[in-house]
C-alpha cells in the first residue's frame, strides 16, 4: 500500500506519456481539437463576422472565448473515447492487476485531458493573435482565464469519464459531447443575446456557457467581471463535483 502511494505521481506520469503519444499519433484527434476550432474562428470572423454587431472593435476579440470552449468540449470527447478503448481492450485489467494505485489509470486520463486541452487552447490563442486578437489583460487576469478554462476542462473531463466508462459502443461514447459543443451557439459566445427571441434568450442567458464566456471576455478586455465570475465558477465547480462523484462510482463498479 505504501509503495503504491509513493509511486502515485510517477505512475500517473507514465500514463500521461502514454496518452499524449496516442493524441500525437492520431491525426483525427489533432484535426478535431485544434484545426476545427480554428476553422470555425476563421469562418466566423471573415465570413459571418462582418454582419454581426457586437459592439467590440474586432469580432475575434468577442468570439475567442466561445471558440476555446468548443475546442475543450471536443477535446474531452476524445478523453471519453480513449477511456472506453482502454476498458474494452483489457489494458485497464493489466494495470489493475499490477502493484500500482487503482485510480492511477483514470487520473492519467484526467491529467492528459488537462495538458492536451491546454496545448490546443494555446495554439488557438496564437492563431487568434495572428488574426488580430488583442488583449489589454494583465498577468492576473490571464491567470484567472487559465484557471476558469482549467476548471471547465475538469468539469467536462469528469462527464467524459462517465461516458467513457459506461458506454456500450465506440460510436455512442462521444455522443455526450455533441450537446456541449452545441451549447456555445445558444449563448452569448457568437452574438449578443439581445437579438434572440425571448424564450431562447432566457435559456441563453441562464445556461453555464454564457456566464463563462462573459467572464473570460471581461477578463481579456480588462473590464470588471461583475457577478458573472461567481456564476461561472459555481457552474464549473458544481458540475465537476457531481460528475466526479458519479464517475468514481462507475469506475469502482465497472473495473
Amino acid at each position, binding site marked *: *500500500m505504501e*509503495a*503504491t502511494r509513493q*509511486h502515485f505521481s*510517477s*505512475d500517473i506520469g*507514465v500514463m500521461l*506519456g*502514454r496518452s499524449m*503519444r*496516442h493524441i500525437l*499519433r*492520431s491525426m483525427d484527434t489533432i484535426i478535431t481539437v485544434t484545426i476545427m476550432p480554428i476553422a470555425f474562428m476563421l469562418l466566423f470572423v471573415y465570413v459571418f463576422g462582418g454582419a454581426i454587431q457586437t459592439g467590440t472593435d474586432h469580432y475575434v476579440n468577442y468570439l475567442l472565448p466561445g471558440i476555446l470552449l468548443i475546442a475543450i468540449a471536443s477535446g474531452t470527447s476524445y478523453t471519453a473515447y480513449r477511456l472506453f478503448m482502454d476498458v474494452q*481492450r*483489457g*489494458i485497464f*485489467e*493489466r*494495470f*489493475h*492487476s*499490477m*502493484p*500500482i494505485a487503482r485510480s492511477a489509470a483514470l487520473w492519467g486520463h484526467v491529467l492528459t485531458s488537462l495538458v492536451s486541452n491546454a496545448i490546443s487552447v494555446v495554439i488557438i490563442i496564437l492563431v487568434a493573435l495572428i488574426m488580430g486578437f488583442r488583449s489589454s489583460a494583465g498577468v492576473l487576469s490571464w491567470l484567472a482565464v487559465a484557471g476558469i478554462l482549467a476548471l471547465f476542462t475538469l468539469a467536462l473531463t469528469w462527464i467524459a469519464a462517465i461516458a467513457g466508462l459506461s458506454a456500450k459502443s465506440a460510436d455512442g461514447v462521444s455522443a455526450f459531447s455533441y450537446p456541449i459543443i452545441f451549447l456555445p451557439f445558444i449563448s452569448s459566445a457568437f452574438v449578443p443575446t439581445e437579438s434572440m427571441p425571448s424564450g431562447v434568450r432566457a435559456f441563453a442567458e441562464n445556461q453555464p456557457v454564457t456566464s463563462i464566456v462573459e467572464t473570460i471576455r471581461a477578463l481579456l478586455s480588462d473590464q470588471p467581471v461583475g457577478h458573472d465570475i461567481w456564476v461561472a465558477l459555481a457552474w464549473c465547480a458544481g458540475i465537476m463535483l457531481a460528475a466526479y462523484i458519479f464517475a468514481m462510482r462507475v469506475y469502482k463498479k465497472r*473495473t
Partner: protein
Amino acid sequence: MQDKAIQVKGLQKSYKQLHVLKGVDIEVEKGSIFALLGSNGAGKTTIVKILATLLKPDGGTATVNGFDVAAMPDSVRQSISLTGQFAAVDEILTGRENLIMIAKLRHLTNPRQVADDLLNRFGLTDAADRRVATYSGGMRRRLDIAMSLIGKPQLIFLDEPTTGLDPEARIEVWKIVKELAEGGTTVFLTTQYLEEAEQLADQIAILHEGRIIAGGTLAELKKLFPPAKVEYVEKQPTLEEIFLAIVGKKEEK
C-alpha cells in the same frame, strides 16, 4: 503451506441470477504448470480474475503466494502477472514502448535494457519500433506475455493464451510456457483445448458447471477412465501435422 502457490477453498461467485462458481477448490504447487480446463462460459476467466484481484469472490477463500486475495490485494499484485484473454497491449504504441511502459510502472531501474532483453528473447527485435497495430496475432500474444514477465513475478496467469492463434504461434507459446516453468515460475493457465493441457500441465483440473469435477496429473486423470484397450489402427496424419510439415519444409528452403 509454503510450497503452494495457490490455495482456493469453496470459492463462490454469482453475476446477478447466474451462479457461476459453486464452491471451487484448487491447489497449485509452486513452480508447476497448472491447467484449468473448461468449455466456454464455464467460469475459468472468473476464477483468474478473482485470483488476480480484479473481482471479489462472494464466498470461500483464496490465497496467492501466501497472501489472501481479499485481505492483501496489494501483496498479491506484487507477486503476480496477468495475461488476459485478449492481448492487453497498447496498439498505438510500439512494441518497445509497451515494454518500457510496463517496466516503468513496475519501477525498475533500467526500463530500456529490460525492454531490449525481452524483445530479443521473444524474437521481436525487428518489429520493436513498429506500432503494435501492425503485429500478427502471434506477435501480439508474444508481446503480451513478454509484458507479463517484466519484474519477474513468481506466478503468471495465462487466460486462454492460445485461443485464436494459428498452430505455429500456438507451439511458440507452448515453448515459452515450458521455459517459464523451467525457470521456476508458477504458471496458471486456462484453456479449452485438451491437447494444450496434455502438452503443458503438471496438474490439470476440469471446471464444469461451477465445480471442479476432476483434478490431478494427466496420468491420474487417465486412470479415471477404463483401462486402455490395445487396438490396431492405421494412423493418418492430422491436418495440423500436415500443415506444420508443409510450412516447416518451406521455412527450411
